[in-house]
């Protein structure tokens, strides 16, 4: 679960990390009021869960409340990489002397968190990593011991020379670790961490991604969820035990298992088709799940054909077939559908489906090819 900047900054401040105490607004008028209250100049910042908003014009300096109004007015409703701007953060503007990067994430290879710092702040850190990897300094963090002050100090001496700045930065790093650990985050990032002209160190941007699997330990965090329209659809699917990601293609897919679902999308693409979605219905043959999954697929107007790809494992194909039949009986389908069914008891399963007029194949690649063909023809497959 990605938090927005204004939410992440609040959590930072609660953990003792200095960050401008701005105001989140959803209208230009409120933006002006906030600018008046904070005192100008202010920075007007689009709250979107994507990078590169600065280049897209989503961040503006305002020297007067009126400028704040017009900046807010122009940014609200903007589309940044597919994200519509609905919220702004009005932050007091501060005089920046230099910008740094500080972040923590999970090092999958070493299986532990790692803190990364760089003097190349304010830039896309993945770009820094790709182009000048020597400019990023790493410190693995033992998950039980946490980031020790001496480790933070070593990193801070890579970025700063003044000992007060070193100590301030090291202290922020330790607090960032605590924030990351306390919240069960998978990413906690300050970019840029700024040295201001007065020598103080402060977090000018804030990014936190929480571990969805650990949200049960942080019930309050669920309230911070501000889903975009596509996230809403995914969350709705999740509430029915479905894992769904909408894409832009024509072939709606319904698959049991995440790996197999990716393989299904891949084979569609490999054969020249375009998958409309990722959709994993999990291991069960529960008809209710299939109904919800079908509703997701038909609600996507891009979908020209549906490909159901099921591998019967512990759950037998005949049971799966019965489940599918039951689920599909209540649905009035307007696009063609191809079912592929294989695994334990596949012959019996295919026979059951055929008995209800549902074409079922045993081969995944052929099934995908058939779905693509039907989508192109626009004909009905059952």
């Amino acid at each position: 679960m990605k938090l927005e900047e204004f939410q992440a900054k609040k959590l930072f401040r609660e953990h003792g990390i200095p960050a401008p105490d701005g105001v989140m607004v959803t209208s230009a008028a409120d933006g002006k009021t906030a600018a008046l209250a904070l005192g100008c100049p202010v920075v007007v910042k689009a709250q979107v869960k994507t990078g590169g908003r600065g280049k897209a014009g989503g961040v503006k300096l305002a020297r007067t409340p009126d400028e704040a109004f017009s900046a807010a007015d122009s940014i609200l409703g903007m589309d940044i990489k597919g994200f519509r701007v609905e919220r702004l953060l009005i932050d007091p503007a501060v005089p920046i002397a230099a910008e740094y990067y500080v972040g923590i994430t999970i090092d999958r290879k070493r299986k532990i968190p790692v803190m990364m710092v760089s003097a190349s702040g304010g830039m896309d850190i993945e770009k820094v990593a790709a182009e000048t990897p020597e400019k990023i300094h790493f410190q693995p963090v033992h998950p039980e011991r946490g980031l020790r002050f001496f480790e933070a100090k070593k990193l801070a001496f890579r970025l700063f020379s003044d000992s007060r700045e070193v100590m301030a930065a090291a202290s922020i790093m330790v607090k960032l670790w605590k924030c990351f650990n306390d919240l069960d985050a998978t990413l906690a990032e300050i970019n840029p961490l700024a040295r201001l002209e007065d020598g103080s160190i402060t977090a000018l941007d804030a990014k936190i991604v929480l571990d969805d699997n650990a949200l049960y330990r942080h019930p309050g965090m669920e309230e911070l969820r501000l889903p975009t329209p596509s996230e809403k659809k995914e969350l709705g699917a999740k509430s029915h035990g479905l894992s769904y990601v909408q894409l832009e293609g024509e072939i709606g897919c319904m698959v049991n298992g995440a790996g197999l679902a990716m393989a299904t999308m891949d084979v569609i693409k490999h054969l020249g088709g375009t998958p409309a979605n990722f959709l994993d219905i999990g291991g069960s043959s529960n008809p209710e799940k299939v109904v919800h999954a079908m509703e997701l697929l038909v609600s996507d107007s891009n979908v020209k054909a549906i490909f159901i790809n099921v591998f019967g494992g512990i759950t037998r194909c005949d049971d799966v077939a019965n489940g599918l039949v039951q689920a599909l009986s209540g649905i009035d389908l307007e696009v063609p559908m191809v079912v592929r069914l294989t695994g334990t008891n596949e012959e019996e399963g295919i026979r059951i489906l055929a008995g209800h007029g549902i074409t079922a194949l045993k081969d995944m690649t052929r099934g995908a090819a058939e779905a693509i063909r039907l989508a192109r023809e626009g004909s009905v497959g059952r």
Partner: protein
Amino acid sequence: MSILIDEKTRVMVQGLGRDGSFHARQMKDYGTSVVAGVHPGRGGSVFEGIPVFDTADEAVGKTGAQCSVLFVPAPFASDAILESANAGVGLVVAVTEGIPVLDMSRVAQELDELDTRLVGPNCPGLISPGKSKVGIMPGNIFSRGPIGVISRSGTLTYEVVNQLSLAGYGQSTAIGMGGDPIVGMKYNDYLVHFERDAETELVVIVGEIGGTDEQDAAAFIGQHVTKPVVGYIVGRSAPPGKRMGHAGAIISGADSTAEAKVNVLREHGIPVADTVEQIVDLVAAGLGG
């Protein structure tokens, strides 16, 4: 031969809830030597002929269990892994999905200090066909033979194995290593065993987007594996930044795309299939050569 488990491996089942009970029975039916169940509060009872204990310590002490398969709910799973590991179990198979990543990080650090290997979490387990099955794989689609399989996924493993079995290529051991960002053993850990295993003639590795385990495997194979290896990577059509079902399947950098992985594998001379069907062809070619 086979790796990690065989008919002699003494297995205990941690967590005898709905799933644990079902799969304990399935494993027993498959022929797995299930010697104990662990379920706090049910110590002293017997389930399907299997003695049940309150703690892993007791189960290990009284039955000599060497391997534990976990069906414990996510909030308690990391504690259960550590319980087994500290009780002296050598191999823990964690089926449980949804364990917080920092919990797994703590587990991974502690397992480093103990003599315990971990398969998973969020995995279907592993099977040495005809000998032992530890996990939730559908035993009937597997057949005994010379192919080692290592996969990050569940149903996709079944799909791949099913096609191999239908084509006459049985498996020495097939492993679902788990779809989470942090899992216990990875490709390389299994490859070491497959390389040493007399029954295994070829290894299929089924990868996906996220992380760089496949790249690590490619480098490792180039240096340490003499047996032929065939690759298959899914997620070529996945958009960046989106989690594709598995918590570990998310493209977070250029290295973690399917293309990058396919390329690195091929650069190391490992043939990579474009579709599941192609895996069979590449296996045939690999065994032929």
